[in-house]
């Protein structure tokens, strides 16, 4: 998914369909063409010695799909999975390869159609998350929806950053009893 599909040029496309979901009471939106499906939360198998942000992997019809927790990436409050917790399967470019990926969401709402004219650029300050991750903000009903620029969230530099975090951690020592 590239920037084009996340935020199409204003003059070319009149409206945009996005899936809205909630992370730590904040509303987010992703353009639907990059979304494969929404799953109920299921047990995620951890991959040892990887950053916490990368939750682990799930078995999706015989395929092994990684699941990430954006709340950790965005430094948000973490809450235990509930019946509302979902995994949104998206397709995103990671290191130049189209990769299916699961995003943990506290709640998934609905697909909304928004007018491209209503999309406002992200405010320069006062964001909880990196401005680079946001392609725009749109008001829908009572909420502001943050349109995510997923290609930036999973950009190699960002991944390198989180991978470094794990290597800086103290590796587990030999057993000493």
């Amino acid at each position, binding site marked *: 998914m590239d920037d084009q599909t996340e935020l199409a040029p204003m003059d070319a496309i009149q409206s945009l369909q996005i899936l809205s979901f909630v992370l730590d009471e904040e509303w987010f939106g992703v353009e639907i063409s990059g979304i494969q499906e929404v799953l109920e939360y299921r*047990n995620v*198998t*951890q*991959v*040892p*010695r*990887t950053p916490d942000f*990368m939750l682990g*992997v*799930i*078995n999706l*019809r*015989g*395929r*092994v*799909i*990684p699941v*990430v927790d954006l709340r950790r990436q965005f430094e948000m409050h973490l809450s235990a999975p509930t019946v509302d917790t979902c995994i949104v399967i998206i397709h995103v470019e*990671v*290191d130049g*390869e189209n*990769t299916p*990926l699961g995003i943990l969401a506290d709640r998934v709402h609905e697909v909304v159609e928004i007018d491209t004219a209503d999309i406002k650029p992200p405010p320069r300050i006062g964001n909880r998350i990196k401005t680079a991750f946001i392609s725009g903000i749109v008001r829908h009903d009572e909420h502001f929806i943050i349109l995510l620029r997923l290609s930036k969230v*999973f950009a190699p530099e960002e*991944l390198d950053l989180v*991978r470094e975090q794990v290597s800086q951690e103290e*590796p*587990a*020592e*030999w*057993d*000493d*009893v």
Partner: protein
Amino acid sequence: MTDPVDIFREEALEHLSNLEAALLELEQAPTSAEEIDAAFRSMHTIKGAAGMVGFDHLSQFTHHLETLFDRVREGQVELTAPLINQILEARDHIERLLDDPSPSVELQAVSAAQIIQFTEVTGEEHAGPERQETGHASQTAAGEARLYRIDICPAADAFRDGFDTLPLLKELSGLGEIHVTTRLGSSFDPRHFEPETCVLALSVALTTHASRESIEDVFIFVGDEWQIDITAITADEDCRLGDLLVDQKVVAPDALEQVLEQQPRAGELITAAGLAAPETVQSTLDEQRFIREQQKKQRKATPEQSIKVPQHKLDQLMDQVGELVILQARLEQLALESDDERASSLAEELSRLSTGLRETTFDIRMLPIGSTFGRFRRLVRDLANDLGKEVVLETEGAETELDKVVIDRLSDPLVHLLRNSLDHGIETPEVRREKGKPARGHLWLSASQHQGQIQILIRDDGAGLDTERILSKAIERGVVQPGADLDPQEIYQLIFEAGFSTAQTVSDVSGRGVGMDVVKRSIESLQGRVQLDSTLGKGTEVCITLPMTLAIIDGLMTGVSRERYVLPLSTVEECVEAVPETEDENSGVRLIRHRDALIPCLRLRDFFRVGGQPPEIEQTVVVRVGEALMGITVDEVVGHFQTVIKSLGRLYQGAGGVMGATIMGDGQIAMILDVGELVEQARK
């Protein structure tokens, strides 16, 4: 792949590698008719196909090469070493020309220069491709060789009329492989011998691609009284001696039958019965042998039909088979839990089917490793020339089969090892002579299957590894403490360290110290091992051991809390119960006693930070990485499973200690451990 241009390119590349193989063969044996024919055919086919898909320039260029091989075939041009070099360059040029139907001006200039060189050799006018088919219009591009028997019985006056049979035979031999038997005609009577009367009869067995008409054309000028009998023999037709004799009118059919009734050996019996002179029978026996040989060849030459399938379809098939295996495991577990007889018989049936399907699918992915050997021969040859060394590469076990993915990923490390041997191992001819070795160095590359694993050996008879120099270098670089006491094996292992090179000079080929560590890592990423052995002054041997496939492995399932981890069974030595008494509390390192030796031990629970409480008695799996043994402590050992390896994908690239994941019977995921890396990480 339906684009004709793509198909053309792929086929052209195949023909180019055939050409290359033929040329390298011809370098050793410059007159091998078989190889010359192979080279001619590949050029001929590329020329024709290129013309059809609009690669006109390429078609024109190839035409000159075709002409050249034609001349070689006719014996007008000799294949010298410089000429073979030129043709090899032309082969590379063709590969470049394949990129674009209308090549750049530069490429066209290269073509022109090469064409001039070739036309000088062939003596051909700088003519266009119009004058295509030279002397060999009869050569039909397609179709298999056929076997003909031609009986020639010249007229009695043939010699008096100035005819000779030799030119005819020469012309026939131009059409293909021939075998001639001669005998005296039935009219021969020694009492009235006349030297000028022709009493000769010839019987020719001919294997050829040429049509019947072109055979008949050979006899266009002989007299009308000659008896020429051309019969096609099919591969199925049995050629019995008796029948041949009957066909040649040596024996009457009924006489033969009488003799046959008396059995056992037709030849002896016919001779004994005085029906034919012993020599006649003998020569006919020769013919029989020839025909049988040719028939055998023909049967072999008609290969089983095969089709080309794009790689990704095979990968898809493999994936689906993998899923089927997983599904089958789930069903089996369900049947076991529900204790339903019908379900378990179904599960069993499915298990049988899926196992078969899996094996067939693996088999499809298997390719002989020899497909890469051809490339290596060219590489060795070119490199030896560049370095001014004389080297022969001998390969063995080209038919050894490996997963295509493994072959593809093996190619680079092998190239590297061969280069190393050429550059550092094998000395220049002068040095070799001084040392009393033959001037020409030898490189051996062999592949073989050994206990379900593939073993690849690269051996040279070069200088060998200088342990002292390696050691001093290692100390200089701080890899080893001065005064360390290392045995030769340990010293050899040092060259696998990053940034290590003992070459005195850095050459274009190798010696920058990026190399052996990369080789080792790529082999290990294929779940393989590298071992090295060397004798100073005698040579070096590198031994690579690899699993046959990467898609599925035999695994040992272990558990820590609720997590499951799979260890590749090939690394597992044994499972022991770790007893606390053997822990060395002083050093903080957990050691366990294993066969009178203390080995370090890694507790997976701590290393992977798995939650929960360890059970009272833990299990330790002893694994071997290279020469080192290590213990991996887990809660429980579940058992042996066929493990379908699933990639963790890009996101988890570089996840330490894990090589992939597998889906278990209950649908849950288990991590497959990369034991080599685990040991490496634990050491740090």
